[in-house]
């Protein structure tokens, strides 16, 4: 280490130049290779059986989420102008590049009306030429009212709104498409008509663009505040700039390397700079804290000697904290989700770069630019801090029982909270209620059967299974049971709706014949009749052409994971009954995949959390050559983690994929605080041999640095509370909370345990 130190002191300028060159190269790599992956499917493990199955079913039934465009007229939609708008809007949508087939746009204008005439079946459009006369308008209204497949689905029950559903090509949603549709909406509103744009692709797409945008807006503010607070605490412009540079440069290198190696930027990996800033400033703060205290205590020492002392004293704790943090992150490699693996590797790498930068670049820069002059007034501040340390030490040491009791109570209360944590993959929940999408989505959900779809895929063991009345009735039972049980389920669509409709109209429109007939061949002949009569391809969205596999489609008025999970569990109860009749039950579709995906993330997160605890204990035990120290070292992490998750459970705040991941920060921060504190405690213990003095001195040194670190990052991240985007608010809150609890946990309960366990004082007492 000495040799390295001398090298740094000798070639400080070279180090600065090399750092600059690599940074420029990294920036170039970012510019050349930048690619942001927004396709949610790319996040999911492709080989996971649930996803493999869902993809197959999506292909089979052309399952795609639709953009929903609702048109509302207070006087009712059955007037020439509104119906004409529905027709024109339908045609305009069909012309969009993102619409593959004209059939992909379903509206009152394109939908089939299956009706009976005097002797048979008739399948025709509700209208082609827009009806003008009162008589024709009334006929259209009657046709809709008596059609169970259309009424309440495409036309609201109160007849003041109608919805157009446009299935776009996979992953073709973009800001420009959204703008185009909004322009159409604008064009057609007026004359008492209002247009609402909603649907899962809109929500997903909006989130994909809103989150980075919000981050771009908020992140400079975070940096600015950190810069200001860092300056106030360090009282040194040079120190502030260099510390921030370390964090920025390590973020740039990490991203440069990641993109150079061909990994795209995922929503999850955009969190890497956030992590590096929260964790990385610690190294700089501790180094500056040390060198400035030394400088203050020994004003006669030369700059180079101060640097030598800083490296000698601090390289071990800086390295220990960084290595443990990095390895802690690597525990996320157990996740099944690839972007999370990348997140783990590159955050770990970034932490290591930050470490090297702190140990090489900071001394080199101090060597070149020197230290800020000690202001005479500053000593007053130092004394103030010393006084604080004494006073605080007394509070902690003299009231150990209270602190321990308090900690136990907190662990119990928040531990109970953890048991109530749930993950919400709802996208809509992440938008501020002022966002227009929230309002339009609510409107469409209020008026129609729902914007969220869950597909229940029923797979028969042989052809024509879904012409078998027994099987069809079972499916009908599930549909009506689930519809009755959940008020959030707005309705379902299956091959049964076609069969029942035909059975009714072919039996003199008798309402009592709105049921599944007993004869299998009759059902087959109904479908032949359907096709002969020009029935549309919509049928093939609910059953395959061999009638072996069926899609029972539920519409829900919410995308809340709790409701979706509960509903899925209820449907799964029918699995054994279906198996008895040779039908396998599974789920498919975007909404379902997202649910599975969230569970995977949460599961992986919990698994990796446990794993990293074990790794951290082992590493700390090895580093301090004591298992006891290893166990004591995880106290801040434990408290931070329990409180972090407990708060969510207690306040019923659902976990989201990003906020779940950000909890990993607890480990990075907790380790930093603990290691610096224990290391300094150990050094002071050996130096003074007195427990009380050791505590006070450690408080003055590490306690001060930790306090600085906590204040800087907490204030910086609190800015995110003003974000419009709920996940970013959560991010700010979680990082700040973790900082605070790690800080308090380290200087209270961990200290008390160290003190009571007589760590490093075995022989003395």
């Amino acid at each position, binding site marked *: 280490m000495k040799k390295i130190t001398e090298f740094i002191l000798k070639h400080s300028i070279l180090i600065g130049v090399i750092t600059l060159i690599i940074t420029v190269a990294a920036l170039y790599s970012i510019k050349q290779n930048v690619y942001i992956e927004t396709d949610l499917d790319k996040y999911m493990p492709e080989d996971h059986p649930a996803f493999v199955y869902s993809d197959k079913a999506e292909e089979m039934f052309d399952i795609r989420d639709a953009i929903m465009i609702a048109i509302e007229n207070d006087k009712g939609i059955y007037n020439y102008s509104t119906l004409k708008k529905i027709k024109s809007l339908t045609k305009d949508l069909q012309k969009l590049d993102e619409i593959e087939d004209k059939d992909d746009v379903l509206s009152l204008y394109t939908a089939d009306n299956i009706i009976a005439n005097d002797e048979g079946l*008739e399948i025709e459009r509700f209208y082609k030429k827009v009806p003008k006369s009162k008589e024709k308008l009334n006929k259209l209204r009657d046709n809709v009212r008596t059609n169970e497949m259309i009424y309440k689905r495409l036309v609201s029950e109160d007849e003041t709104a109608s919805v157009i559903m446009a299935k776009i090509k996979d992953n073709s949603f973009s800001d420009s498409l959204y703008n185009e549709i909004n322009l159409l909406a604008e064009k057609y509103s007026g004359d008492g008509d209002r247009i609402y744009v909603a649907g899962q692709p809109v929500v997903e797409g909006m989130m994909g663009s809103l989150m980075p945008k919000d981050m771009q807006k908020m992140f400079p503010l975070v940096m600015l505040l950190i810069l200001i607070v860092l300056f106030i605490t360090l009282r040194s412009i040079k120190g502030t700039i260099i510390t921030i540079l370390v964090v920025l440069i390590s973020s740039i290198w990490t991203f440069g390397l990641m993109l150079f190696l061909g990994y795209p930027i995922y929503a999850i990996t955009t969190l890497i700079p956030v992590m590096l800033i929260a964790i990385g400033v610690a190294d700089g703060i501790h180094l500056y804290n040390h060198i400035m205290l030394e400088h203050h205590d020994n004003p006669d020492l030369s700059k180079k000697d101060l640097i030598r002392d800083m490296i000698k004293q601090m390289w071990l704790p800086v390295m220990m904290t960084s290595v443990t943090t990095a390895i802690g992150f690597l525990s996320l490699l157990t996740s099944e989700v690839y972007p999370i693996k990348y997140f783990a590797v590159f955050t770990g790498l970034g932490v290591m770069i930050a470490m090297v930068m702190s140990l090489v670049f900071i001394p080199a820069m101090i060597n070149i630019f020197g230290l800020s002059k000690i202001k005479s007034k500053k000593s007053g501040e130092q004394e103030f801090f010393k006084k604080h340390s004494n006073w605080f030490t007394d509070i902690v040491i003299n009231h150990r029982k209270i602190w321990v009791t308090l900690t136990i109570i907190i662990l119990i209360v928040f531990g109970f909270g953890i048991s109530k944590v749930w993950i919400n993959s709802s996208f809509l929940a992440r938008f501020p209620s002022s966002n227009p999408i929230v309002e339009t989505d609510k409107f469409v959900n209020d008026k129609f059967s729902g914007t969220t779809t869950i597909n229940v895929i029923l797979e028969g063991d042989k052809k024509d299974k879904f012409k078998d009345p027994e099987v069809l009735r079972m499916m009908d039972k599930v549909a009506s049971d689930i519809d009755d049980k959940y008020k959030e389920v707005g309705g379902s669509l299956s091959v049964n709706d076609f069969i029942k409709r035909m059975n009714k109209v072919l039996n003199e429109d008798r309402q009592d014949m709105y049921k599944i007939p007993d004869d299998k061949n009759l059902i087959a002949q109904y479908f032949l009749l359907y096709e002969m009569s020009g029935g549309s391809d919509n049928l093939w969205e609910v059953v395959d052409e061999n009638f072996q596999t069926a899609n029972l489609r539920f519409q829900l008025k919410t995308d809340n994971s709790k409701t979706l999970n509960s509903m899925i569990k209820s449907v799964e109860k029918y699995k054994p009954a279906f198996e008895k009749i040779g039908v396998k039950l599974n789920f498919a579709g975007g909404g379902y995949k997202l649910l599975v995906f969230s569970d995977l993330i949460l599961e992986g997160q919990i698994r990796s959390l446990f794993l990293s605890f074990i790794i951290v204990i082992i590493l700390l035990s090895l580093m301090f050559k004591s298992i006891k120290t290893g166990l004591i070292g995880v106290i801040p992490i434990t408290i931070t983690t329990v409180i972090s998750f407990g708060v969510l459970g207690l306040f019923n705040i659902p976990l989201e994929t990003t906020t779940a991941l950000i909890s990993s920060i607890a480990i990075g921060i907790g380790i930093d605080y603990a290691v610096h504190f224990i290391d300094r405690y150990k050094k002071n213990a050996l130096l003074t041999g007195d427990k009380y003095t050791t505590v006070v001195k450690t408080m003055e040194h590490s306690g001060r640095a930790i306090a600085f670190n906590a204040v800087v990052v907490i204030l910086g991240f609190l800015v995110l509370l003003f974000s419009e985007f709920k996940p970013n608010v959560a991010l700010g809150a979680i990082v700040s909370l973790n900082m605070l609890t790690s800080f308090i946990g380290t200087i209270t309960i961990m200290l008390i345990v160290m003190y009571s366990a007589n760590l490093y004082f075995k022989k003395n007492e």
Partner: protein
Amino acid sequence: MKKMKLILIGMAFLSFISLNSISAQTGKEIAFKVYNRPTAKDGESDMKMTLINKKGGKRVRNIHQFYKDYGSVEKKILFFKSPADVKNTSFMNWSYDDANKDDDQWLYLPALKKVKRISSSSKDNEFMGSDFTYADMEKRHPDEDVHKLLKSENMGGENCWVVEATPKDQDDMYAKKIAWISKSKLLPMKMDYYDEDGELLKTLTINKIEKIGKYWVIADETMHNVQKNHKTVILISNMKVDQGLNDSKFTQRAMKKGL
């Protein structure tokens, strides 16, 4: 208005080669030539209809069909032989020469033991889920379109006129059709159908022509909907013409009775 010509006899048009046809023709003259040629009085054949979806999945229907031309009306009856669950289902169509008179159509469902009338309110409807609409299978009167001879070129091994037909009715489902008509056989070898927005919607390709008695008959044809990437292949076999089929063959009683 004679319907379902195409499916019934595979557009079995009498080949009549006149010397006049070699000399300069207008589009309208060619259209009338195709329209006015003598056809078989009656006939029967097996028909295999294969529907191919965009994933390549196939559905096959085997049908036996009869037809008879009464002059003012053309009657035909189709009996399903497979798939099994629709076996003995039959379909009857009466198509009238009077353009103002809609077709009469019935379907007999053996499971219901009832004959059901099918509305033919829209000729734009697809026939049996195929890529042919009812209108596609009709013999269309040349006066309904404006014809334009574009050029002559070879298609499917035949020397053809390329004729563009634009409907006079603004609400027609096609903006235009382009047909490659064999000069020697007066049968289309290929047809392109353009949708109301003027985009190519479907292409009909004639794969095989046979001579049955004195008539040239399409024995194998494919309609490809390029917008949906869905295909329908129709194979005609065991065709017999001019047998003098009995009128009782074309009644609701016959539908119920089966083959």
